């Protein structure tokens, strides 16, 4: 089946590599054209297996197109258009190139049919996305990028170890559902590898660290692709893995707790990614058809509303240069449309009726209740309350209203962002509302469409339940507003271990290792260097008196032979050659005669 088949990721990679050659006048059109072509290519994909390549006796599948990969491919390529539109005015080509290669890694991973292909594309994602952090060019950006890269490389190695052991056990690299009922060590290793990418605690601290530090449009890309590619991988291979349900519920609440403490709006949104991905991971852990539908639907909706939220806060950062609540406030007069768009994102993530989160989140929660995991259902609803508390209320309130603590230059710089950023946000806001209002659009794309069609989110009970939880959360917010006042602090998280671990390592390198090094150096001096010098002196004597004499004698001899030979020279080259060939011929004839005798 490895006929001519254009991989959507290939269009994007080639498009990225050709970008520097495009003339300035055509650049903006080109920046929009390539993602649109990728999206159209995904739309025209037919189901089946394509792009099978045999290398070293392994069959690598680049194009496994089925219902599950299609929905993720669809939303990833759609998101690529909107994120590129959002950052359209960025002049630096390399930023677009890094972002596009990152997206193509994600699309490649989604259509990969085997672990090797998956692994290669996942690594491409990690190594290209780090540039989206470094291009912020702050003093903190460089170490943050390195931390991000180190965590992802470690995660990649754990996944690789799992893959290899798995290959030993089953004899193929096929990326399919694993045996989750009797998991082997390989299954756990693969799961941990995916967990790093999905930011499941305690392997999550890289996420707020990196997404809070990336460029204003880099975070829009970052928030969509890494964690959702991991959710896809989990749906594909680990549906029904019990422990993921527990981890997912912990995630959902963990993100909410840290969001209370967070002072940086983009780090807060990072913690809410962890919280929302928790619903998806819990869905994978439940593993029923409805739960997997829920995980995919929520990933789809999440990419749009979280992208919108990062666009809104990114616009604030872009215009004012500030992302901390303690440095913002009262911006409604200057950035009203950004406020409205961010609010739509906030209402969508909070799962208000007629917004996208409502039709996706409830699927996971209902799947929990349907599987008689009441504790999971209630705790996920509690996390939903926390989601509205922060993203629906805290973020808009402390940026656009609240007590003004901002500096005058923040106020002076504030204003509506460029048209392309506004247009991207408007398109995202429209999609968030469209998905919430017209459910068949999303539900037809889910992995089990028949099951999805039997799910009706808009029942009277469901609507009043959601509204009561959310609106009374709002009451709680305003009652406890004083307690929620942002504080200029940072929150310690699991990154403490590797940040301080790194420091301990450097101390180790400075103090004990350096001492040992000096000691060994001294030891060498006494034990090695002094005897060595002695031997060298002796060798020098031998060299001078014995070897040199020998060599000189030999050279003298050769010179004498040469002098005599020169007198035998007869002058012309041809004669010399003829003489030499003649001598050789005589020798050969003599040799033949001698040997045949």
């Amino acid at each position, binding site marked *: 089946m490895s006929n001519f088949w254009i991989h959507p990721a290939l269009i994007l990679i080639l498009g990225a590599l050709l970008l520097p050659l495009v003339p300035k006048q055509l650049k903006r059109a080109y920046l929009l054209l390539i993602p649109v072509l990728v999206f159209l290519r995904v739309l025209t994909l037919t189901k089946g297996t394509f792009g099978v390549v045999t290398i070293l006796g392994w069959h690598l599948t680049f194009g496994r197109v089925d219902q599950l990969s299609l929905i993720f491919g669809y939303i990833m390529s759609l998101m690529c258009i909107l994120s590129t539109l959002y950052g359209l005015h960025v002049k630096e080509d390399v930023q677009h190139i890094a972002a596009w290669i990152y997206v193509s890694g994600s699309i490649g991973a989604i259509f990969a049919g085997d672990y090797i292909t998956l692994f290669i594309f996942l690594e491409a994602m990690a190594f290209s996305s780090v540039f989206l952090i470094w291009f912020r060019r702050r003093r903190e950006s460089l170490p943050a990028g390195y931390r991000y890269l180190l965590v992802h490389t470690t995660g990649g190695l754990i996944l690789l170890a799992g893959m290899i052991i798995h290959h030993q056990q089953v004899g193929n690299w096929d990326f399919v559902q694993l045996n989750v009922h009797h998991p082997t060590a390989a299954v756990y290793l693969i799961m941990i590898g995916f967990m790093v990418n999905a930011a499941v605690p305690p392997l999550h601290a890289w996420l707020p660290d990196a997404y809070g530090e990336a460029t204003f449009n880099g975070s829009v890309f970052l928030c969509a692709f890494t964690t959702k590619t991991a959710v896809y991988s989990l749906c594909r291979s680990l549906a029904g893995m019990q422990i993921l349900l527990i981890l997912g519920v912990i995630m959902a609440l963990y993100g*909410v*707790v*840290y969001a*209370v*403490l967070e002072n940086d709006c983009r780090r807060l949104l990072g913690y809410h990614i962890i919280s929302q991905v928790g619903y998806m991971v819990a869905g994978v852990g439940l593993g029923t058809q409805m739960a997997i539908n829920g995980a995919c639907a929520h990933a789809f909706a999440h990419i749009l509303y979280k992208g919108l939220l990062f666009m809104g806060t990114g616009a604030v950062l872009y215009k004012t240069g500030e992302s901390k609540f303690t440095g913002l406030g009262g911006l*409604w*007069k200057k950035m*009203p*449309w950004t406020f*409205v768009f961010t609010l739509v994102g906030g209402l969508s993530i909070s799962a208000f009726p007629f917004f996208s989160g409502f039709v996706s989140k409830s699927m996971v929660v209902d799947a929990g*209740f349907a599987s008689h995991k*009441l504790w999971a*259902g209630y705790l996920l*609803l*509690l996390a939903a*309350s*926390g989601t509205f*508390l922060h993203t629906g209320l805290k973020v808009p309130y402390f940026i656009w209203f609240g007590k003004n603590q901002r500096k005058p230059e923040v106020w002076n710089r504030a204003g509506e962002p460029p048209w392309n950023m506004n247009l991207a946000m408007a398109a995202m806001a429209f999609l968030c509302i469209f998905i919430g209002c017209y459910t068949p659009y999303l539900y037809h794309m889910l992995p089990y469409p028949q099951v999805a069609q039997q799910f009706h989110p808009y*029942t*009277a*009970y*469901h609507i*009043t*339940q959601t*509204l*009561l*939880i*959310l*609106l*009374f*959360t709002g*009451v*709680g*917010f305003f*009652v*406890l507003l004083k*307690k*929620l006042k942002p*504080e*200029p*602090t*940072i*929150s*310690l*998280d699991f990154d403490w271990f590797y*940040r301080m671990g790194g*420091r301990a390592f450097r101390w180790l390198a400075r103090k004990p290792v350096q001492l040992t090094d000096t000691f060994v150096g001294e030891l060498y001096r006494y034990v090695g260097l002094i005897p060595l010098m002695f031997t060298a002196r002796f060798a020098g004597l031998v060299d001078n008196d014995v070897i040199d004499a020998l060599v000189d004698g030999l050279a003298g001899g050769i010179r004498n032979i040469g002098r005599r030979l020169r007198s035998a020279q007869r002058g012309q080259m041809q004669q010399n050659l003829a003489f030499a060939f003649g001598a050789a011929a005589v020798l050969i004839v003599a040799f033949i005669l001698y040997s045949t005798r």
Partner: protein
Amino acid sequence: MKLVKLIEYLRNHLKAVVRICLVLLALLVLFDAIPALVDKKDASTHIEALPGFWALFGFVGCALLIIVSKWLGHAGVMQREDYYDE
């Protein structure tokens, strides 16, 4: 800018806006409590079907989250911004 004027208008009449919201909330609780309007056969447990259960759930849940998180934060999770600086 019409949008700014709207927000300004709402802010200038904040008391009225709050009152209207509170009335709407009360109406919603009432609406939810009438079995003829909201069929609670989908409720997973009996407690859920009690009037105002989800309102209480939302309010108490939100308060708990804020108080527990802030307590954790002040117990050592929140640190100075230059904590990691050397």
